[in-house]
């Protein structure tokens, strides 16, 4: 029996990390789909599509669909590998104990094999169908999520979300590269937007799920540095994020409508972060943290939606960005 199953056995959970306890091939189709983390995938697909759609240039619609499919499958595959590696902590956290591996729905090796095969297929297909720059970025995002975030950082440092957040920031850059065949300032700004959005998003979640992370011994910032330090960090990242959100409009990646909405929503993001900063510990504080978490998702969805709308035929507010409009 592995160290993993011994450790969990000592904690009295039903889960065993030893594959022998789960009959091989016992997983259902729905369990394999759950391994792909469909809810996380939706944001990845959406931001990837936005990057692809906002990019200058042309791509055959079918190849664009294949590029988005590859981004989706690759993100899901990385999620499956993550679930394989984190099955011990998933078993002790309320939020994750319903996942297929902690419930013993399939052998861990099957989840790992599923993730690895899908990762390879998605990268190869992206390379052959679209271009190898996009495929390289896709492989990098996958490797970053699995090796840097999941295996290296998550259990070692409260900065896990900050550095590891880069993995989730790749999709719009990949979508952009699928059309342009390269990486430029525009796609780097879209990358940075998600990169700086990730810490306040996850730390807001960690504030009201602090007990869960402590139980699983994951060194999330509220567990290690305390709530006050976390709230200050949320505020600092929100202050960086708000102007960064407007940058695509200034660079001409998006138009004036995007710029105005990004400025307003960024200001409200900072206001909510301020409310979190002032909040006391307890149910009321948790409620405000939950509001910030929900709002952060809305913020990203609205911004990327406007990025798409700005490029839609007949709806363009581009005019070379705000600088072009003023000039």
């Amino acid at each position, binding site marked *: 029996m592995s160290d993993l199953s011994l450790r969990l056995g000592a904690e009295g959970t039903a889960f065993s990390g030893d594959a022998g306890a789960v009959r091989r*091939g*016992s997983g*259902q189709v729905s369990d394999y789909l759950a391994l792909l983390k469909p809810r996380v995938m939706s944001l990845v697909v959406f931001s990837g599509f936005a990057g692809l759609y906002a990019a200058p240039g042309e791509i055959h619609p*079918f*190849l664009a669909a294949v590029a988005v499919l590859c981004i989706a499958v690759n993100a899901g595959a990385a999620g499956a590998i993550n679930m394989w590696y984190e099955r011990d902590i998933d078993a002790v956290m309320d939020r994750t104990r319903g996942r297929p591996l902690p419930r013993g729905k399939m052998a861990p090796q099957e989840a790992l094999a599923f993730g690895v095969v899908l990762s390879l*297929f998605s990268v190869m297909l992206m390379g052959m169908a679209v271009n190898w720059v996009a495929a390289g970025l896709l492989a990098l995002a996958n490797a970053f999520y699995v090796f840097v975030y999941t295996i290296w950082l998550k259990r070692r440092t409260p900065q896990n979300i900050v550095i590891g957040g880069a993995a989730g920031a790749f999709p719009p850059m990949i979508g952009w590269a699928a059309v342009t065949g390269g990486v430029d300032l525009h796609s780097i700004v879209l990358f940075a937007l998600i990169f700086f959005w990730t810490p306040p998003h996850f730390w807001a979640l960690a504030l009201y799920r602090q007990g869960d992370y402590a139980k699983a011994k994951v060194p999330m910032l509220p567990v290690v540095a305390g709530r006050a330090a976390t709230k200050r960090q949320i505020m600092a990242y929100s202050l960086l994020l708000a102007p960064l959100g407007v940058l695509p409009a200034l660079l001409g990646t998006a138009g004036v409508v995007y710029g105005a909405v990004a400025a307003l929503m960024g200001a409200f993001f900072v206001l909510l972060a301020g409310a979190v900063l002032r909040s006391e510990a307890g149910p009321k504080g948790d409620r405000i943290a939950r509001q910030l978490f929900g709002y952060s998702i809305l913020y990203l969805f609205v911004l990327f939606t406007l990025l798409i709308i700005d490029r839609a035929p007949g709806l363009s507010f581009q005019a070379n960005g705000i600088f072009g409009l003023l000039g």
Partner: protein
Amino acid sequence: MVMTGEDEKERLRRQRKKNWALLAALMAFVVIVYIVSIIRMGGG
């Protein structure tokens, strides 16, 4: 672990379902590669 006849029937049913899902995924992959090849050969 002892498996009853019902358990075995259930396991086979799940296996069949997975086989069909795998077949559908492989067929979709073949169709995608075929269409991509046509588009790429056409200069798309």
